[in-house]
């Protein structure tokens, strides 16, 4: 048989391997800094760029898109070439993908600390960067599909299906969630508001976990685990079932992030049901991974690579059992807004994504450099210290989450809250925050040891830039298994496969979106809810810039413990002018939806200057620069214009008088503050923020008619 000679491009794999290691170090270091700030806020060094709210998205983005993202691309570029028996379609596209992606990461690392953010979790980057992401992603897609099309192996291995589903779904997610109207070069408002924005965001957020942190990694698992174990996957049939069920079911589960929220009840239930169904394919995948090692467990004892992979797959199984458990409304009532969720995501990130990446790196680097791993002992050390780190991290956060939640809900025998002061519940869990930091540090030490080990490995080997290979062309290839079947037809055609995956994810998307978007009765309007005043709007954007929503929710759930603590529970109709919604997902501090008119202006002024002056022992960072920064009002007109264009009913010509209105309101607040004895000037940022905070949740207080509540 005639064989074609060609070579695999290892250079692009090497680049992504370096990138994942470098950004892993950066992203995790920022995580440790954040962990420390949570019990010692002084470690923001009073620098705005280092406050918790601004660098929290830096941590999440760095870990998800930089560390895990580059690991995905490293694994895809290595495995795809070999599974297709073809070099990547275009070295140029490979390099555009690599350098484009790194540029996006760098721009994220610059803009996020500057407070340039959309506030939407895992989609914080502003619109020019969103466009860049789309372009680079398309370059990756073209390169991948063209490689698949010119492949020399007729059948596509299951890992490739996962890559295809990942690509198409992330494309859809990114586009739909990034539809925003620019106000300026680095500021935009999403076209969705309130409940709809929340639904779109968590459809995106959940499926970013599903199709960025899970499906591509499952593809990597199905390739690299058999390679490392040197045996085929336990059940290829199971992997087929795993793939199709996962792709179909995952997309529906997003609303489980919004249980007990103002989202319509039917959508919440949909999220719960599909989350429970997800256990089946997820555990199918985990079992498939673990049983691949059947009869070879003795090698796991010897081989650190397999150890990493076994723990990774187990962590995948644990996280995907915990996730559906958290989606049960009764469990969610306790876990939501607490550190339990932080524990959950870190079992996934540290265990599943982290350990699988490390396992792959330990396997791949010696191969790329044609040598042996420098030290097996150090790799074993990395495994154990990393494992210990995860245990410390998860246990402390589970404990902290449940403790705090139960304290929030505790009533005395007289029927009043036992811990009415939120701060008390925070101080109770500070020891857990310290233990979590220790867990993070242990994990980080492991990563540093790995980097040392890999650098030593690289130094002792010589890099194989072009790996020579040969294979028969597809045209000349005769399938030894001639019996045709439907699925073999499907998996022989990458574009058909792409369309099938697309149709599957769109079914769930439409069932969730169409009613919520088309049916007015889903978001009952409340007549007393009015658009924000220009000053409040500017204040809201400062709230977004400082990412107050990282630690404060704006969503009072319909529990007695919450209505006692915060006030009336939140209604869908109260958010109709919220572009974007700011419900938050974690209560490191108390909910703010009913904070309006709760405290005098002076309280907020002094509290932002130094939180512990108002709440002794507070762990909130100080924001003294808000008192001295001038408010930029040059943007008011364009902000009002954009808001009008997306349906906020400001009167005609309002944009022209908006700044006059703004100054009038600012003057009033400033005079009130001056009367209270502080030398506040009306043109400072703090005035706008106070205006916004004082407005929050007050619309329904002015009018007791709140009958138009969401359809529960």
């Amino acid at each position: 048989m005639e064989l074609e000679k060609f070579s695999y491009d290892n250079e692009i794999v090497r680049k992504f391997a370096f990138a994942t290691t470098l950004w892993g170090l950066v992203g995790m270091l920022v995580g440790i800094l954040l962990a420390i700030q949570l019990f010692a806020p002084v470690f923001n060094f009073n620098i705005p760029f280092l406050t918790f709210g601004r660098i929290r998205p830096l941590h999440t983005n760095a870990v998800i898109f930089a560390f895990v993202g580059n690991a995905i691309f490293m694994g895809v570029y290595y495995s795809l070439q070999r599974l297709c028996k073809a070099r990547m379609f275009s070295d140029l596209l490979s390099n555009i993908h690599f350098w484009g992606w790194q540029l996006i990461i760098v721009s994220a690392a610059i803009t996020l600390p500057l407070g340039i953010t959309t506030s939407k979790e895992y989609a914080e980057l502003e619109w020019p960067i969103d466009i860049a992401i789309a372009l680079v992603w398309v370059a990756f897609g073209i390169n991948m599909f063209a490689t698949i099309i010119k492949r020399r192996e007729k059948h596509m291995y299951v890992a490739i299906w996962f890559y295809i589903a990942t690509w198409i779904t992330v494309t859809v997610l990114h586009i739909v969630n990034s539809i925003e109207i620019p106000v300026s070069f680095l500021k935009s408002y999403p076209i969705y508001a309130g409940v709809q924005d929340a639904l779109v965001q968590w459809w995106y957020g959940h499926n970013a976990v599903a199709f960025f942190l899970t499906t591509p990694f499952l593809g990597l698992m199905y390739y690299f685990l058999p390679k490392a174990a040197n045996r085929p996957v336990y059940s290829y049939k199971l992997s087929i079932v795993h793939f199709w069920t996962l792709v179909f079911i995952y997309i529906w589960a997003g609303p489980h992030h919004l249980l007990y929220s103002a989202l319509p009840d039917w959508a919440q239930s949909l999220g719960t049901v599909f989350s429970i169904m997800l256990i089946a394919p997820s555990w199918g995948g985990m079992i498939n991974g673990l049983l691949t090692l059947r009869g070879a467990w003795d090698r796991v004892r010897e081989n650190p690579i397999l150890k990493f992979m076994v723990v990774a797959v187990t962590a995948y199984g644990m996280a995907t059992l915990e996730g559906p458990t958290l989606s049960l409304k009764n469990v969610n009532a306790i876990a939501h807004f607490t550190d339990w969720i932080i524990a959950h995501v870190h079992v996934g990130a540290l265990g599943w994504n982290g350990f699988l990446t490390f396992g792959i790196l330990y396997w791949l680097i010696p191969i790329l450099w044609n040598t042996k791993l420098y030290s097996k002992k150090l790799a074993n050390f990395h495994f154990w210290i990393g494992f210990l780190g995860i245990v410390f991290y998860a246990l402390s956060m589970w404990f902290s989450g449940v403790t705090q939640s139960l304290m929030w809900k505790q009533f005395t025998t007289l029927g009043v809250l036992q811990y009415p002061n939120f701060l008390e519940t925070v101080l109770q869990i500070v020891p857990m925050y310290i233990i979590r930091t220790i867990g993070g540090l242990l994990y980080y030490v492991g990563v540093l040891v790995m980097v040392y080990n890999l650098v030593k490995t690289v130094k002792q080997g010589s890099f194989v830039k072009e790996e020579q290979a040969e294979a028969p062309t597809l045209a000349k290839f005769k399938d030894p298994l001639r019996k045709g079947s439907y699925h073999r037809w499907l998996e022989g055609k990458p574009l058909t496969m792409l369309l099938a995956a697309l149709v599957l994810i769109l079914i769930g998307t439409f069932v969730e979106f169409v009613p919520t978007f088309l049916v007015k009765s889903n978001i009952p309007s409340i007549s007393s809810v009015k658009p924000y005043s220009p000053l409040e709007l500017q204040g809201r954007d400062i709230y977004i810039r400082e990412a107050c929503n990282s630690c404060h929710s704006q969503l009072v759930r319909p529990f007695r413990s919450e209505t006692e603590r915060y006030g009336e529970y939140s209604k869908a109709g109260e958010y109709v002018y919220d572009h974007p919604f700011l419900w938050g997902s974690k209560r490191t501090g108390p909910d703010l939806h009913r904070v309006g008119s709760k405290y005098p202006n002076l309280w907020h002024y002094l509290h932002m200057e130094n939180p512990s002056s108002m709440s002794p022992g507070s762990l909130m960072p100080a924001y003294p620069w808000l008192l001295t920064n001038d408010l930029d009002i040059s943007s008011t007109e364009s902000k009002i214009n954009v808001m009008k264009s997306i349906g906020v009913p400001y009167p005609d010509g309002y944009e022209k008088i908006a700044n006059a209105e703004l100054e009038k309101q600012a003057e009033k607040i400033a005079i009130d503050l001056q009367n209270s004895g502080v030398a506040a000037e009306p043109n400072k940022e703090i005035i706008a923020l106070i205006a916004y905070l004082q407005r929050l949740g007050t619309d329904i207080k002015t009018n007791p008619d709140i009958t138009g509540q969401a359809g529960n």
Partner: protein
Amino acid sequence: MYKDILQSIDGIEFYAIGAMVLFILFFIGMIIWVIRVDKNYIKRMSELPLKEDKPGKNGLMNFKNLQGGPNEL
């Protein structure tokens, strides 16, 4: 509430039932296929990642083995 939503979109019944029917048919079809599929095909597919390192059974793949990974540790 859900009833109200359903009633307010024309032909919504088809929409919900259609999604369910599609879902069920798809999975039944997939399961039938998985049960009936040719064993040799499954075996060959599952060995794809491993075959690249050494000449395959069918003698189709024949490129240089770089090294065997874990055994080298």
